[in-house]
């Protein structure tokens, strides 16, 4: 799609997810419990009527019932405000999945500054991302979180 916006910033998404999840566990975010007509009863059936409606706060921390929760919010970027809808699915008290919907009607002004790795080659440098009109950037597959975490814990052990 023709799109003048900068590449949806992967770091930004990661930050959004972390912020939302932190807000969920702190019980701060206003959630509406998704009502799925005809959804099969799960074996962790919630017999309590969800007390959340948009606009009311959930006072209890850490006691969200299993199911899907949706939150609408605004995320402040340096370029302005962006609407985000987050859907979080809880199963047995653990976050099973997070899905986002973003409406990038505002441009993200913040630039992502990557770190220089050792072995940086001087011959092919290329241009700064902000100098080039791009829809998105394609590098290698984003290293999965699990891989990164594993690597970090191995390095930690090695340091000890």
């Amino acid at each position, binding site marked *: *799609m023709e799109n003048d916006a900068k590449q949806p910033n992967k770091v930004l998404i990661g930050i959004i997810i972390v912020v939302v999840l932190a807000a969920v566990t702190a019980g701060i975010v206003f959630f509406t419990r998704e009502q799925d007509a005809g959804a099969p009863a799960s074996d962790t059936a919630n017999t309590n009527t969800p007390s959340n409606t948009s606009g009311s706060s959930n006072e209890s921390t850490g006691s969200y019932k299993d199911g899907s929760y949706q939150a609408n919010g605004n995320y402040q970027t340096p370029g302005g405000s962006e609407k985000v809808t987050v859907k979080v699915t809880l199963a047995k008290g653990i976050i099973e999945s997070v899905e986002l919907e973003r409406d990038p009607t505002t441009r993200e002004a913040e630039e992502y500054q990557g770190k220089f790795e050792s072995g940086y080659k001087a011959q092919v440098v290329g241009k700064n*991302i902000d100098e080039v009109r791009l829809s998105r950037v*394609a590098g*290698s*597959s984003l290293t999965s*979180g699990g*891989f990164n975490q594993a690597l970090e814990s*191995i390095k930690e052990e090695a340091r000890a």
Partner: protein
Amino acid sequence: MIYQFEAIGTLWSIESVSVLPHDLKDKIQNRITEFDVVYSRFREDSLVAKLRQPGVYTFPNDVKKLLNFYEALYQVTDGAVTPLIGETLEHAGYDSEYSLQPKSGIATPPAWRDAMTWNDVNVEVKQPIVLDVGAAGKGYLVDIVAEVLKNHTITDFVIDASGDIYHYGQGVERVGLENPYDEGKVVGVAKLKNKSLCASSSNRRKWGDGDDWHHIVNAKTGKPVQDVVATWAVADSTMVADGLATALFFVPFHALADWDFEGVRLLASGTIEKTDNFVGELFI
């Protein structure tokens, strides 16, 4: 509207003009899970996990296209690219726990015909194998998800599964080719319209003493490839773009003449090369 979620260990993003309806999102998630449960070597409950025992296994219909393509890649790369690379990767530490501790004396995979044959959807395993479809599997799944969108009459969309990109419909995607050594820079731009692009690079997942292991392994030598650091391929399907981007670590452009594609390779020496038909520009 951008719909984002994590699946098969990576971030996915589907851009479309309008919001995708709930039932379509569910279909997409279900189809991805269905694929993962068959093809993931990181799951104990997957169908490919069963291939660790000799026998005959019935796969879903989608296996034919994938295995046919893998067989062609195997031929043109003279065995460097093979789906039997899974055990080598596991021994190197790239296993389901990401233990990342290479064993000593890591074996190369068996020759394809020695280990596995197939007929239609039935796969016969003659010796225990660990199937890894990393070279083309994600691209194939992107194509499958694209079909789900099209069947729901979504006419304009871009799927980006972190380096596997599918454009369909209006507009032109200008895709920056990320410098693997510096995420803030792009070495070129590919212009994509109703095509797929895959990016692959060897320096993002590195482990071992002195970082001498990474995930793009030459099956003939059993060692990670050293002379090519990043590749990009553009083709009519994401499966082909993904597989060719992998193959380009092992063979030059002309070896892949059986396919209609555009390609860019960044070598460890620092030079960059492209096919004559590459639609886009390189910043050199």
